């Protein structure tokens, strides 16, 4: 029965479109589960770092807390302030989600667990990552609120500055693997992980990724003490929840790319590939959460100087050295 249904669907859509559709549906489900778990993890880790317990009363270990929050946000009033330019205002929380879903197409969960192994996989993730900034700018601009606009402007400046070291560090890995396809890059790490060959690039990537996902100490776009809530100041209810969902999904994407580029992807002994992949991803995310609740926020000029004056020159130097060494050793 299932086989017959699958075969007829396969005949109608063709194998490529069918895998894409099924994969994206699974990704959509995974995004929700991942966000629910990560928000719980964040609040729990934050609690323990601050000598508190964190959510505890709703469900065992407070596990149902984020489900409850999600249902509550669904049932809240959706406010559209009178002076917003509403097509952009409504579109922005949806558009912020698009790059997340696109990136899921190429993430290598395992040797077989990947929707499509494109030969431009790395480029695809970073190219669509830029779209998220556009959505944030749209939201901040359309809100017709000075805090939202300031937050959006800061977000654009920060993302432009930190995408460059991110790409430079990824390029060093691509040079070593000789391919932009994620499977090829993971294959090239069969012996030694790239984090040992490219420690500088790995560090640059992790710093840049933290800034790309707008998380502390780089959470200037939503600095609460200066900008109320940044670009999503005017968003209420489910629209705000979508921004939240996108932020945590972005964390997952960024950590997955880091795992594939530097930490051997799905490779590991004993357990099957996807388990290793998820384990590495969530360990990296735990690190990011740890950093958020440990370090204070940077000032805006410090943030920009850090990228343009230090990260980018270091990234370029690392890339040149990698290229020269590869030229003379291969």
């Amino acid at each position, binding site marked *: 029965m299932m086989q017959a249904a699958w075969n007829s669907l396969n005949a109608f859509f063709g194998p490529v479109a069918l895998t894409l559709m099924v994969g994206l549906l699974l990704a959509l489900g995974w995004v929700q589960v991942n966000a629910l778990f990560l928000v719980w993890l964040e*609040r729990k880790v934050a*609690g323990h770092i*601050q*000598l*508190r*317990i*964190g*959510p*505890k*009363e*709703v*469900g*065992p270990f*407070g596990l*149902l*807390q984020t489900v*409850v*929050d999600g*249902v*509550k946000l669904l*049932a*809240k*009033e*959706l*406010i559209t302030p009178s002076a917003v330019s509403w097509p952009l205002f409504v579109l922005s929380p949806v558009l912020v989600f698009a790059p997340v879903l696109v990136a899921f197409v190429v993430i290598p969960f395992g040797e077989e667990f990947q929707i499509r192994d494109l030969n431009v996989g790395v480029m695809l993730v970073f190219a669509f990552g830029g779209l998220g900034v556009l959505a944030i700018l749209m939201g901040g601009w359309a809100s017709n609120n000075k805090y939202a606009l300031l937050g959006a402007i800061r977000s654009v400046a920060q993302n432009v500055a930190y995408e460059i070291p991110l790409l430079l560090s990824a390029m060093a890995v691509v040079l070593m693997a000789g391919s932009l396809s994620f499977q090829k890059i993971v294959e090239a790490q069969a012996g030694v992980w790239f984090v040992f060959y490219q420690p500088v690039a790995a560090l640059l990537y992790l710093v840049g990724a933290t800034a790309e996902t707008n998380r502390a100490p780089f959470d200037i776009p939503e600095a*609460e003490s200066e900008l*109320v*809530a940044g670009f*999503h*100041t*005017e*968003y*209420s*209810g489910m629209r*705000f929840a979508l921004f939240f969902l996108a932020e945590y999904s972005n964390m997952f994407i960024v950590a997955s790319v880091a795992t594939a580029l530097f930490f051997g992807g799905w490779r590991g002994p004993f357990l099957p590939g996807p388990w290793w992949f998820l384990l590495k991803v969530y360990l990296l995310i735990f690190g990011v959460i740890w950093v958020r609740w440990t370090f204070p926020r940077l000032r805006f000029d410090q943030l920009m100087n850090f990228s343009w004056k230090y990260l980018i020159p270091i990234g370029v130097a690392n890339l040149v050295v990698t290229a020269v060494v590869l030229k003379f050793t291969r």
Partner: protein
Amino acid sequence: MVEAALVQPRVKLVLLEDLLGAVRANSLWPMTFGLACCAIEMMAAGASRFDLDRFGAGVFRPSPRQSDVMIVAGTISRKMAATVVTLYEQMPAPKWVIAMGNCAIGGGPFSYPGQYAIVNGADKILPVDVYVPGCPPRPEALIQGVLELQDRLTKQGRTNLLRRFGRFPEPAAGEGGSRV
């Protein structure tokens, strides 16, 4: 004076309302908003030792658009009153107000004949749901206020099946009513 909940629905879905009440009760996000010294106790309630986040009420949202509860923590001066009302009106619909401390309840020590600068209590300008007395109230008192608000949303806690502990034994017949 702002009126809350003017429109009554024609059809009431009892089970859904119980469920939503329980959900809302366990996810009361307060607004980051303090007017005077009571705000210090409010911060203490969110920090370690007291930890309001255990009950899901520790997500202090900076924007009124994303918060559910307004904790009026402190003295409302006449100049501030308009802003407080604006903030309340900016919150999305199922919203509640906790008046924390004697100033927010009735003007506190600043309320005397002939004074011209202080609003005599938050309930002069907002529909207050829970009053937490004290000058300032201790963080435990604020937590009790939040739990009281949870009980209001869940029929004295009877439909609050999500929360893992019950606060009090069932009140004996005829005893009922508010406990504050």
